[in-house]
């Protein structure tokens, strides 16, 4: 399954208060990408802290895929995105954010695409097909 050309994802971060979803994500990406590093957070604030402390410089996290839920207590997905935007540019450019929502409401989708830090909008459950296509979205970027 691993492809030298496309195997650009370095690691995964899952942010969802629902731990079952985080488990599904972890198992699904491991089926596609094998033993790939991943972090799960049920509290989005802790995820932000993680980015602040672990992404100071260009590191082995060059292409982190972040799967972000919208509907969370305390800090929801939109609030997370606001806080995320305040992170250093160097940190942000290492992270590719996908909204992973149970929502079938088109307003959530439109709002996701309106955010410049969001790469894609996925509907739960995370499918194997989606995971295989992750790098396509940004691997072909000119940079």
């Amino acid at each position, binding site marked *: 399954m691993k492809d030298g050309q496309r195997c650009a994802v370095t690691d995964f971060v899952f942010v969802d*208060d*629902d731990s*079952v*979803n985080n*488990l*599904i994500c972890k*198992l*699904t990406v491991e*089926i596609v990408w094998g033993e790939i590093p991943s972090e799960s957070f*049920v*509290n989005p604030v802790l995820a932000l802290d993680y980015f602040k402390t672990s992404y100071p410089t260009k590191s082995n996290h060059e292409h982190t895929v972040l799967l972000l839920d*919208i*509907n*969370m*207590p*305390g800090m929801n997905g939109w609030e997370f995105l606001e806080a995320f935007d305040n992170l250093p540019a160097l940190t942000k450019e290492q992270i590719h954010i996908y909204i992973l*929502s*149970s*929502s*079938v*409401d088109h307003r*959530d989708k439109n709002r996701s695409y309106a955010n410049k830090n969001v790469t894609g909008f996925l*509907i*739960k*459950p*995370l*499918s*194997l097909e989606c995971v295989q296509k992750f790098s396509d979205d940004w691997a072909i970027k000119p940079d």
Partner: protein
Amino acid sequence: MKNSNLSFEWLWVSNKADFTKALVEYIPSIILCDHSLPGFTSTDALWIVKEAGVKVPFILVTATVSEEFAVMMMREGVADYILKDRLQRLPTAVVNALEKWEAMGEREAGIANLTAIMENSDTQIYSLDRNFRYITFNTFLKNTLKQVYDVDIHVGDRVFDFLDKLDSEESRGWEDKYTQALSGTPIHFVKEFKIGDHRTFSSFSINPIRQGDRVIGLSCFATNVTAEKLADEKIKASELRFRALIENNYDAITLRDENLNLLYSSPSANKMVGKCDDEEFNTPFNDTIHPDDLRLMNLLFTEAKADPGKVIHCKGRIKHKDGSYIWIEGTIRDMLSHKGVNGIIFNYRNISTQMESDSHREKITSDIIQRNKDLEQFTYIVSHNLRAPVANILGISNLLDIPTLKETDRIEAIAGITSSARKLDDVIGDLNEILKEKRNITEYKQVVHFEELIHDIHSSTAEMLDETDIVVKTDFSEAESMLTVKSYMHSIFYNLITNSIKYRKPDVPLSIEVKSRLANSKIVLSFIDNGLGIDLELHGEKIFGLYKRFHPEIEGKGMGLFMVKTQVETLGGTIDIKSKINCGTEFTIIL
């Protein structure tokens, strides 16, 4: 003459031409004339004086004269005659003649004046003796009677003579009036005459003429007042018409003076507030207006007074006799300086029905908006809370199909199915409860005592309340109970109190204060704690939302406040929150 101490000037003429000239140019006060003059006689001289219209005393001064001649001359207007041998009488004769002449002139002038007044008056003037015979009358009366009745009247005619012929009954009516006046009472009246199609009105004034204590006759005056009378009738008719228009108007019409005291209040104005005229007049302006509208209304009246004639529009509530208030809309206009009005016109109409239907419409609109919000929220719940566990189950099912899945992962995944199915079941249960709650508006009401409610909750949450250092203070002295739906009140109290316990500060003893008070005939409930509090600037709008949770580290579904708000609103009340992080929370419910 010179010896008699009289001061005078004199001119001597001796012929006819000089005499004629002197009459015009010298203008003497008295003429002393000899009988025999060169070329003419004293008779000629007197004739010249009369011819010239010169009115001065003429004294004949002569040597001899026959008695016949003297009498003849006196008849012709000579004031006196003096024989030349008795000239010592001349000064006295001159003075007497001048005095007499002056008095005569005055009387003549007086009569002439009176006659002129009578003749030039547009009043018919006549006087009657005690036998109702004409003593005098002016030409105007004579001409009028001639013109109207073709009657010629003469001094001495009885006043009833022609009336008897025309209308004997009418004649007796006049006799009564004249007789009454003869008894000493002046009479004044207006009488209508119908001559053909014409109506004329005369104002009569019949006054007794007295000589000492006796009434010797009547002086009567009749003035044509047809024009005034008809104009008056026209004004009265027009006033009646306008009054009828005002009094039958559905709108209220009132007039107030500059201090807003009532001057006029139309029947519809009285009817609107269920009062009679007197009651309305005895009510001060400030007591007729709703207290909340009083300031505005007074301002508007001040505005109207500042700009006389300007129409000021107003809307507010006025008080009905039964104490209720009526919505009115109208205009205020200062016409204090307008001669015919002299007041501030305040007209208005009852718009209560309109306001009610407006507020009814507003309520329907707000209900629809609320329903729509509920629907949106429901969509959100379906999208997130309902679909999330379904998505999990689907995701895990897909994973379980993968043969390479490790056994440990498989076990964990299967546990995920179970927990997701449970979550799904919970959400469906919650939704069912919410929908049931919203439908149950008609649940019966009973008197609920707040203290009992606290007691019930205390026993059902004994575990939570007893195990920790919690102080619950209550004060329901101002409002002990209310008629309401008990299950809702229980749920409201339960949710707010357990919330305070859940979100307490771990290191501080928890204090919960529940109070009731009365405000504007409504019951106000306060729930105050010293717990964690919440950042309202951040979460303000979402605080009462379904499945909204603000303390992820503390167990909860995000249902409590949603249910509280739904129930308060179902009971027709409002709920408000004040809170600061680490300073506690205060909920205020107005029912």
